[in-house]
């Protein structure tokens, strides 16, 4: 335990000193179920327990939230993991400023449950609501409104970070700004985020007013994004990776804004903030590997495209189906069978996006590896030193782990890198260190901040070791 805790934001003397709780030794994976890792996992229920976990032992430690990073970001093979899900208390809410202060284990789903009926929504949400806020800051997650509102961390006004010494540092754009920008997107390697302040968005209803737009090829899809950009705060496209030739990149765009009361039909306007709990189907076991082969994926994607019609006019969407189509199937990660899957998400600068997209879609079509779900999205600006987003277009794909897959993804990396793009660490399980260094030009600057915050390199993960992120 650090003797001199003089910083005013360190643990107040009213916290009792506690021994580190017992760990559980278990096998962990990310959401992609690849790779497997074995760790001692701690799950503190009090701040002082967390402090004891961090300071009682010099072995490497990484914080883990809801375990929704796909690859090895929240894994620490043969080392320690601290699960933050029990530190999930909401501490204050100012309805005037719409500012929530809460612990980092609070999830987006909990914010929706508590605040949507009161007319507030998370400012940014990834494609699943079952992520913690701490993890969201560490991965600097984006949502369907990135082109307009940037990432979730852009709406976080400050957070408290527990360092390897057990001390707590308040970080914001004005206070400890180097540490703030190294922690946003810093993959948990600067310390453990304890609590934070986030500005919620005011909404009039739990519905979205928007459109479905069919785009017959890549150019039409990009044109549709550019055309609807100013009008809609939220936009995303499902893209058919199994198509080729003149239909290469055919997509269905879903765009929308939260509906105002006067946009709602009368029946919905009577109870506009009813969040309607739904039943979630569950994938009860790993489906056999052949369930999703290139044929079924091809058929599924073709059917998805055929079934969607251009919405002639505006449509009203439920919030949960608009934002979280996959959350309705709770364990959808099991559909890829027991070898698991990897997500591949990349981004290109604006001037390279069209060519980059065509190049990758052609490579996929040529490889006969069809991605079951592929998503296209336009990004805006981003600030964290290791943040993934940059202005341009991003494509997210998933592939079941099969022989030869990683060689194929290496070839995609080369295409992305050549055009000045990069891949998303929160989804990665296989990027090579030299490619990573070339894709993230601010790495050296980040490493300086990391060395100051964590001089003995207490915080590291399977991901940070694989990519050689830690300062030498």
């Amino acid at each position, binding site marked *: 335990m650090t003797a001199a805790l003089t910083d005013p934001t360190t*643990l*107040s003397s*009213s*916290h*009792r000193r506690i021994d580190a*709780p*017992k*760990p*559980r*030794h278990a096998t962990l994976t990310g959401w992609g179920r690849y790779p497997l890792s074995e760790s001692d*996992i701690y*799950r503190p*229920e*009090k*701040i*002082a*327990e967390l402090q004891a976990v961090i300071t009682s032992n010099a072995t490497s430690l990484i914080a883990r939230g809801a375990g929704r990073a796909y690859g090895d970001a929240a894994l620490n093979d043969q080392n320690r993991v601290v699960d933050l899900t*029990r530190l999930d*208390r*909401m*501490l*204050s*809410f100012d309805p005037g400023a719409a500012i*929530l202060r*809460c*612990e980092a284990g609070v999830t987006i789903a909990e914010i929706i449950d*508590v605040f949507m009926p009161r007319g507030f929504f998370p400012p940014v949400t990834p494609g699943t609501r079952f992520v913690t806020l701490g993890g969201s800051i560490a991965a600097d997650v984006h949502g369907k409104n990135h082109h307009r509102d940037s990432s979730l961390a852009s709406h976080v006004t400050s957070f408290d970070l527990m360092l390897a010494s057990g001390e707590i540092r308040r970080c914001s754009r004005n206070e400890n700004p180097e540490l703030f920008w190294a922690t946003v997107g810093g993959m948990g390697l600067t310390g453990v985020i304890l609590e934070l302040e986030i500005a919620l968005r005011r909404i009039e209803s739990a519905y979205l007013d928007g459109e479905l737009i069919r785009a017959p090829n890549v150019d039409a899809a990009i044109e549709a994004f550019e055309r609807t950009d100013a009008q809609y705060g939220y936009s995303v496209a499902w893209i058919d990776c199994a198509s080729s030739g003149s239909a290469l990149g055919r997509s269905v765009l879903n765009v929308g804004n939260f509906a105002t009361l006067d946009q709602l039909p009368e029946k919905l306007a009577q109870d506009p903030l009813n969040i309607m709990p739904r039943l979630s189907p569950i994938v009860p076991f790993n489906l056999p590997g052949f369930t999703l082969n290139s044929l079924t994926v091809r058929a599924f994607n073709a059917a998805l495209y055929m079934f969607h019609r251009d919405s002639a006019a505006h449509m009203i969407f439920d919030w949960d189906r608009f934002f979280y189509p996959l959350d309705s199937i709770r364990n959808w990660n099991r559909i890829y069978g027991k070898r698991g899957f990897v997500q591949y998400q990349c981004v290109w600068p604006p001037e390279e996006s069209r060519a980059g997209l065509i190049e990758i879609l052609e490579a996929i079509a040529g490889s006969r590896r069809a991605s079951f779900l592929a998503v296209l999205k336009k990004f805006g600006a981003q600030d964290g030193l290791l943040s993934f987003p940059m202005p341009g277009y991003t494509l997210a794909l998933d592939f079941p782990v099969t022989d030869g897959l990683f060689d194929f993804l290496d070839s995609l990396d080369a295409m992305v890198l050549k055009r000045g793009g990069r891949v998303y660490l929160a989804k990665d399980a296989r990027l090579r260190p030299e490619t990573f260094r070339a894709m993230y030009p601010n790495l050296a600057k980040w490493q300086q901040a990391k060395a100051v915050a964590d001089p003995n390199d207490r915080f590291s993960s399977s991901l940070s070791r694989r990519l050689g992120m830690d300062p030498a």
Partner: protein
Amino acid sequence: MQKILILGATSPIARALALKFAYDGARLYLAARDASEAQRVAEDVCVRAGVAALSGTFDAVDFASHDKFVRHAANELGGLDGVVVCFGTLGDEEAAQTDPDAAIATINQNFTGAVSLITLAARHLEQQRSGFIIVLGSVAGDRGRARNYVYGSAKGALAIFAQGLRGRLAKSNVHVMTVKLGTVDTRMTWGREGAMLTIPPARAADLTYAAFRKRREVVYVPWFWRFIMAVIRLIPERQFKRVKF
């Protein structure tokens, strides 16, 4: 508005239970050893349920402080309609087997401290001839096991204490409910081998609250532990002493 004192409020089950009471509009005093943690739980209840909750600190084994503490809590609440006893600790099971101080500490933290606090609160409720006491016990109190009999004996004694109190307070219209918890996914079971049939703390709180609303007297949470423990109690001692769990 019900005025309720929750003792050991920072445990995950107590926290979930506090929320259930708060959603129903109760006024809460959340007490725990750690003042700062108790305050965080109170803030959480306040944000989620939209009702203010008080918080404070108490020490289960500082018996001399209990009278003043219960008066203080009742004062702050502006009355007292119910007490929920959630504190307790497994302690150091191995040390408790050979070190009398460790054994007595476990007994005091789980039983003696609760007896002291419940007796003080019961006096108040008996006088006003209304109210309730919920005691969170454990299935470990149903039969002594080689591994955790010190903790088990404290929880068993607590159940018998609550049983007698229930009889005495019945004529005063005070409801005493004993909850026998099976394995719940908390710090107590985290990392223990062989923890089976574990339920999340929020589920344990839901079941406890539902039983309370039905004015149940003794409830196993979840219900199937009643049958498991019935079977375990039936095993003859000669065999049971060789069982390893």
